[in-house]
C-alpha cells in the first residue's frame, strides 16, 4: 500500500519566505534518510510558498486563474512524502516520527491501489508462472 503524507507547516502564511533553520533542515534530512533506509520512501518534495503559485478554479464552464498569495488560505501544503507501508497504522507511525515543529500537522492519505479494484480484476492473480523476463 502507498500513502501520501502531506505536511502542513503551522506557519504564518503571510510571511514572505518559508526559510527553515539549519537545525530543522538537518533533522528533516535525517528523518528522510531513516525512511529511505527502511526501504519505504518512494518520493518526496518540498513545495515553494503559495506566493509563487497559482490557483486555477473551475466554475461556470471557464477556468479562472488567481496568482498567489491567497488571503483566505489557512492551511497550506508545504511538502509531501510518498511512502510504502503495510497498513494505515504503519504510515501513521512513520508520520509521528517526523521532527515537525509546534503547530505543524501531517495528513496521511492512502493511495488507490489494486485491492481497491473490483474482485474480477483481483482474481487476475491466478496467472500461471512464466519466465519473469518476458512478463
Amino acid at each position: 500500500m502507498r500513502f501520501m503524507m502531506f505536511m502542513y507547516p503551522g506557519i504564518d502564511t503571510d510571511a514572505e519566505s518559508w526559510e527553515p533553520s539549519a537545525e530543522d533542515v538537518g533533522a528533516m534530512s535525517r528523518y528522510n534518510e531513516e525512511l529511505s533506509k527502511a526501504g519505504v520512501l518512494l518520493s518526496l518534495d518540498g513545495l515553494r510558498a503559495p506566493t509563487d503559485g497559482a490557483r486555477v478554479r473551475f466554475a461556470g464552464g471557464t477556468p479562472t486563474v488567481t496568482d498567489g498569495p491567497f488571503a483566505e488560505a489557512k492551511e497550506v501544503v508545504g511538502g509531501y512524502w510518498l511512502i510504502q507501508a503495510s497498513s494505515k497504522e504503519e504510515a501513521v507511525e512513520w508520520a509521528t516520527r517526523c521532527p515537525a515543529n509546534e503547530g505543524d500537522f501531517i495528513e496521511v492519505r492512502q493511495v488507490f491501489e489494486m485491492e481497491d479494484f473490483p474482485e474480477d480484476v483481483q482474481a487476475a492473480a491466478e496467472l500461471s508462472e512464466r519466465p519473469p523476463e518476458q512478463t
Partner: protein
Amino acid sequence: MSDGAEAGRAVDAVWRIESARLIAGLARMTGDVGLAEDLAQDALVAALERWPQSGVPENAGAWLMATAKNRAIDLARRGRRFEDRREQLAREAGLRMAMDAAEHEAAASGLGDDLLSLIFTCCHPLLSSEARVGLTLRLLGGLDTEEVARAFLVSEATVAQRIVRAKRTLKEAHAPFEVPQGEELDERLPSVLATIYLIFNEGYAATAGESWMRLDLCEEALRLGRVLAGLMPRQPEVHGLVALMEIQASRTRARVGPGGEPVLLLDQDRARWDPLLVRRGLAALERAEGLGHGAFGPYTVQAAIAACHARARSAEETDWPRIAALYDALAQLTPSPVVELNRAVAVGMAFGPAAGLELVDALVEAGELAGYHLLPSVRADLLAKLSRGAEARAEFERAAEMTENTRERELLLARASKLR
C-alpha cells in the same frame, strides 16, 4: 473496531518498523538468532499488554530493546540458583554491562551492520530456499507465521516447523552472526539476492491465492531490496536486483485485463505502467551499470532487458536487437533453457521469425523444456508469422493441453482457432 484491536494494530505497526533492528541487535548480543527472536517476541508481548493503556512510548525501539534485555536477564536468573542475593545482583549487572558493551562495540566497529548480518544469516547457504524465505519474511519483514503461511499457501504448522528447524540448523552449525567479507561475500551475496527475488516472484507470478497478499509480497521484496541497497551501496548487483523488481512491479496494473485474463507484455497498455516505479528502476539500473564497470551480473542484465521495454513508448519501438544481445549475455552468465527460449523470442523479433525458430528448434531437438507449455506456444507464434498455419495451430493446441491455467488455455485455444 474495538479500542483494543486498534491499539493492537498500532503495536503491530511499530513492530513492522522496529522488529528487524531489534532482532538484529539482540542477535549480535546473544550470538543466537533463535534466542534473539524469542526475546524480541517477549518484548512484543509486553508491548501488547502495556501500550494500549500507556500509549506507544516516544522511543518505541529503545523501549522494546530495554524490555528484551530485561527478559534476557530474567532467563539467566531462572537458569541458576544463587547462594546470596549480592552475587546474583553482581552477576546480573555484569550481564547487563556485557550486553551494553556488545551493542556499543557493534555500533563502533563499523564491521558490518547488525541488520546486514541478520540478512546474511537468514539467507545462509546451510538453509533450504524455503527456510531462507520463511526466516527472511519473519525476521526481516516482521511478518508472523500465519502471514507467511498465507502468502505461500502452506499450513501455519509447516511454516513454524521450517523456521524452528532453520534456527536449530544455524545454532548447531555455530553460524557466526556477521557479514561475510572478501571472497566469502561474493559467494554468499547471490543467495541473499536470490531469496529476495524469490519472494518478489512468488508475489508477481501469483500462482494462486488472495491477490492483495501477493502484492504485499512484491512490496516487501522491493522494500528488502531497497534496504539492502542502502546497506551495500557499492554492490552493483544489489542495485541491479532493485532495478529489475522496480521495473517489473511498474507493470502490475497492466498485466491483467478487465476479466482477470493475463495481458502479455507487448499487448499491455503502457499508460498503465507506473511511471514512478519505472523512474526508480531506471535510476537503480544506472547505479548498477555505473558500479559494474562493464561487467554486469545476471540481475543487472535482466534489469537492462526490462529497461528496454520500459523505455519504449510503444511495443513497436522496442529495441529488439539490444534485447537479443542482452539475452545472449544472460545466457552466458546463467545458461538455462528458459533464458534460451526468451533469447529465441528476442531474436525472432529482431532478426525475423526464421532466426527465432532456429533457436527454438534447437531447444526441441535437445529435449529441453519438455512439458513447458511456453515452448510450443513460442514455437506456434513464430510458425504463424512464417505463415505455416497448420503447424502453428497444432503447436498452440499442444501448448493449451500443457498449461494448467484455465485462462491461459482459453487464450491459446483462441489463437489456434484463428488459424483455421
